[in-house]
């Protein structure tokens, strides 16, 4: 198995503490800047040392705090793509690949470099220095460099690798990939598993769809891209009518019966901005329709973001926004099927 269970205290305020096993596919590590993604990848690669714990890769021990095992990076069988471009600037792309393969004998080295250049379409740029090559070529060269030693695990920091490039990587690398990302769309496209990292801890993991649709905690909901995560209290629980009422300070919402809860329980209600539906104030009453005051309108590339009092955000298509007209007093509909109640 491949598993990572480590602790590392970085400062008074921040400690990385994770314990998870890695599947055979691509695992996306999602978290904001400063959540510890890069540190985690560096610890697995052997570029940083944890305080305690154990790292296994295909049952081989890479690090064990108690047994004092700490393999050097080159013996760990990990390929590492750093977040920033770190090709050596005074060497050509080919020489960069040769440097990465220098531990192999001459013939083997040449074979691997030639193969890497072919697989990652670097023939044209091979004799250029990184500054003279294009950003795409530099990125492909960084990937080729990380894979040149035929690693058992690829660690890819948030380096701007897109879905197409992950496809290219998959064509030449079969092993597991642990990638750090901030882009949820990319994680959905490329990854088979997703782990949400918040302030050094994994708050939820699972298949991307499951994690995105069923966040387990308020932090997970925020990381999964829910713009509205509102605190509330359960005010009514009616099993017979299959409904619960949630008091969200100023308004209340009706959702299906919440088993295993008591009246007065504190809960979180999460809903994506795109799921909140603004209506004109004179529209007929409907369930979960709440009057709200529009505070700000911010145009986006393909949509319009509306911000309401109570820090509620809604996102509309341009056509929907035009249909609302120039109306300051609006109602917000919270469709029941889009509401996520989090204990």
């Amino acid at each position, binding site marked *: 198995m491949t598993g990572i269970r480590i602790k590392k205290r970085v400062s008074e305020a921040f400690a990385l503490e994770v314990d998870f096993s890695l599947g055979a596919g691509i695992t996306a590590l999602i978290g904001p800047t400063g959540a510890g993604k890069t540190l985690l990848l560096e610890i697995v*690669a052997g570029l940083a040392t944890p305080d305690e714990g154990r790292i296994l890769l295909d049952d081989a021990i890479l690090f064990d705090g108690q047994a004092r095992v700490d393999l*050097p990076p*080159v013996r760990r069988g990990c390929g*590492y793509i750093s977040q*920033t471009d770190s090709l*050596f*600037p*005074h060497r050509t792309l080919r020489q960069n690949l040769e440097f*990465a393969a220098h531990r192999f004998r001459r013939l083997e080295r040449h074979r691997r470099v030639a193969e890497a250049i072919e697989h990652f379409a670097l023939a044209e740029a091979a004799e250029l220095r990184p500054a003279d090559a294009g950003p795409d070529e530099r990125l492909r060269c960084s990937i080729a460099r990380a894979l040149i030693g035929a690693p058992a695990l690829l660690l890819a920091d948030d380096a701007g690798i897109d879905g197409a490039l992950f496809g290219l990587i998959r064509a030449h690398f079969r092993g597991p990939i642990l990638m750090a990302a901030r882009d949820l769309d990319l994680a959905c496209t490329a990854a088979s598993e997703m782990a949400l990292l918040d302030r050094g801890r994994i708050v939820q993991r699972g298949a991307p769809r499951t994690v995105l649709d069923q966040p387990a905690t308020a932090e997970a909901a925020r990381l999964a891209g829910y713009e509205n995560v509102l605190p509330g209290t359960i005010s009514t629980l009616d099993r017979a009518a299959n409904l619960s009422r949630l008091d969200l300070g100023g308004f209340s919402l009706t959702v299906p019966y919440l088993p295993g809860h008591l009246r007065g329980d504190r809960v979180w209600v999460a809903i994506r901005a795109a799921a909140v539906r603004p209506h004109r104030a004179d529209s007929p009453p409907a369930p979960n329709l709440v009057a709200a005051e529009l505070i700000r309108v911010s145009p986006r590339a393909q949509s319009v973001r509306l911000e309401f009092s109570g820090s509620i955000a809604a996102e509309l298509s341009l056509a929907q926004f035009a249909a609302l007209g120039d109306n300051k007093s609006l109602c917000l509909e919270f469709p029941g099927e889009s509401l996520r109640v989090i204990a």
Partner: protein
Amino acid sequence: MTADWSPLWFSLRVALLVSLLALMIAPWPAWLLARRNWPAVTLLAGFLSIFPAVIVAALTAPVFTWRVAVAAGLVRAVPYTFSACRAAFQSLNPGYVKAARMAGASDLRIFWTLALPLDGRAALRAAVHVSAEAMLEVAVALWILGRMSLPPAGAVLLTALAGQALALWLRGEGASSVERQAGR
């Protein structure tokens, strides 16, 4: 009466040897200590970098030979070059070092293949600068000892100024090569 030019050859020889030896001695320890913070080393190097060792040696040593002058010159040149190299190595992109370590490169190999090619100019600049100053110090020492007349003193001064100009030029070139590295 012709002037005695031997002080010029004396100070030139000292300056050349000081810069060569400083370049051979200082960069490797600077690389080893680049990622460690030892205030005592920093303080000592800082103090020795401004210590006029050649003049002190000229005033205290029984005979002021070129060997004494070189040894005294190194007392200042090595710490100065060390500090300059260390500062340059500390600004080396940590991503390069990590990539090299992933490839299994040793400290020595990273030093030869990354630190020196990318930041060697800083070492060269520091050695040239400090040996030009050593040359001036030798001239002052010889003048104090009454062993130098005006023409060689003028020549020493001009040579030392040329050395400083070279150091300045190297600094400008160094800056532009850093920009090239960054792909700007």
